């Protein structure tokens, strides 16, 4: 399949700090690609280089086979970017700013007007079109940021922490919108440190830490690679001298007040659950509560780096 973004051996340092230490990424056309990592891992620098905001030092980046330096007009026309940080403007309304943005991409004002209007309506900022950025709420600013990324109808959408600082409702609305974009054929590169976001949206994920890609793959494959999930079962006091029936399982038993708790360590909790419940009930255990703990990308990150993503 055609590569939308091809990054080879990207290196970048700021003064004495190595920000990127040989990043390789191949993002296929139509993919919803997640770049997952903690703050300072190198996500924004990678995006900055792809989009021309950060100077390329070593390595190469191609967009649909064209070099971002030699063919910058072509490559930038294919990309829409929603940066992590909000910017501001003291002079113009958000509608005017979107029309300017379309103009920079070479879209004449007459053609840009209906495009901008449609995007503003879709993102729910049409009513605020005459407002200046500073008078918008955080959520509205985020919508405006995304609108800017869409004015040139890009084939590749780069979203740098698009849901940072927004409320749950807007987060879900943005997720739905991104899913719709993806369904319509856009290639999306999403950077996030929200595990749930990456798991819900991305069909391929790279985990970046300290300027290096430490693992990549489909989210479910990455999760399976760390394996362990667990099933926590709380039950009324049981006869601990007759626990032979639990031998096929790997488990730990604890007692708290009048309850026993068994934690079963399993590779696939959903698959193992019926079997465990069946055995427990057949052996006259009285179940009070059952809880499944599935591994997630956070566990993948912890197993790879030894720390949590949001530490």
């Amino acid at each position, binding site marked *: 399949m055609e590569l939308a973004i091809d990054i080879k051996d990207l290196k970048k340092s700021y003064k004495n700090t190595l920000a990127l230490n040989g990043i390789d990424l191949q993002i296929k056309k139509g993919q919803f690609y997640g770049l997952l990592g903690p703050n300072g891992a190198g996500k924004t620098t990678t995006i900055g280089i792809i989009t021309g*905001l950060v100077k390329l030092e070593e390595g190469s980046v191609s967009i649909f086979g064209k070099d971002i330096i030699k063919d910058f007009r072509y490559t930038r026309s294919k990309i829409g970017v929603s940066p992590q940080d909000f910017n501001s403007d003291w002079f113009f309304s958000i509608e005017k700013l979107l029309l300017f943005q379309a103009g*920079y991409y070479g879209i004449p004002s007459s053609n840009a007007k209906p495009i901008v209007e449609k995007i503003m309506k879709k993102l729910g900022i049409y009513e605020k079109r005459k407002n200046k950025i500073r008078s918008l709420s955080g959520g509205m600013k985020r919508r405006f940021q995304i609108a800017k990324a869409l004015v040139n109808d890009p084939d590749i959408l780069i979203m740098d922490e698009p849901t940072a600082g927004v409320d749950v409702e807007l987060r879900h609305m943005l997720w739905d919108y991104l899913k719709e974009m993806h369904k319509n054929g856009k290639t999306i590169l999403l950077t996030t440190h929200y595990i749930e976001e990456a798991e819900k949206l991305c069909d391929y994920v790279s985990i970046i830490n300290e300027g290096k890609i430490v693992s990549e793959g489909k989210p479910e494959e990455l999760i399976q690679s760390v394996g362990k999930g667990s099933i926590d079962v709380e039950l009324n006091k049981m006869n601990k001298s007759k626990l032979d029936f639990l031998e096929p399982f790997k488990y730990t038993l604890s007692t708290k007040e009048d309850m026993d708790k068994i934690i079963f360590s399993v590779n696939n909790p959903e698959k193992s659950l019926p079997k465990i419940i069946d055995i427990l009930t057949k052996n006259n255990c009285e179940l009070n509560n059952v809880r499944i703990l599935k591994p997630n990308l956070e566990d993948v990150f912890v197993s790879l780096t030894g720390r949590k993503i949001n530490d």
Partner: protein
Amino acid sequence: MINWIGFSTLTYREISRFFSVWRQTIVPGLITSGLYMIIFGLTLQKRISEIDGVSYTIYILPGLIMMNVITNALNNTASSMLQMKLLQQMQDMLITPLSNFEMALAFIIGGTLRGFINGILVLLLGMFLVQMPVEKPLLVLFLLFIVSWAFSSAGLLVGILSETWDNIATILNFFVTPLIFLGGVFYSIDMLPPFWRQISLVNPIYYVINGLRYSILNIGDTSFSISIIMTIFMTIVFTSISIWLFKIGFRIKN
């Protein structure tokens, strides 16, 4: 291939920006120049009736025009550039298919127009208030344009180098304003002692004022050709350095 639509959009934005705040960018120059004409001209004219055969009030007008042109052109690009950096607006442009050269040129044109408009308005004010003659109108227009361009480019340079508003204020207050006032706005350098006369001759702003005074009043302390050569030289230097710094992304890209 040039991104004409992108380039004209950014140029239009830069022009709209200063027009949208015309009370700050157009009117003050006119008021200040009018006050200079009334206060300096009418009061000092009693003591200095004529310089090189023209009344003192009219003699200072070319300098006042240039003062407006220089400060407005320079301020426009310097503040626009710094504002875009501080408010993170630059990234909106840097991610688009606009070349750095096109962006730099759009900024320079915006500042040039502001300087030029301010110059023309003060010129008209002088013609209206004190019946200032204009001996070589085409030359006047050319000089107003080229000096606006030169100092708009200088402003871009200042904007690129600056990281705070304080940086811009320092350059304006400690370098540009003294150079303007010492460039012969209010006097002929022939009136200065020999040492200070020699010092004035290394002040580039002296030549742009002298050039305009010659074009408007047909008088000057130094040859017009030298003034033109100095003005063009300054324009080339400021334009080249500012565009080059923009091209390499100095203090613009991380």
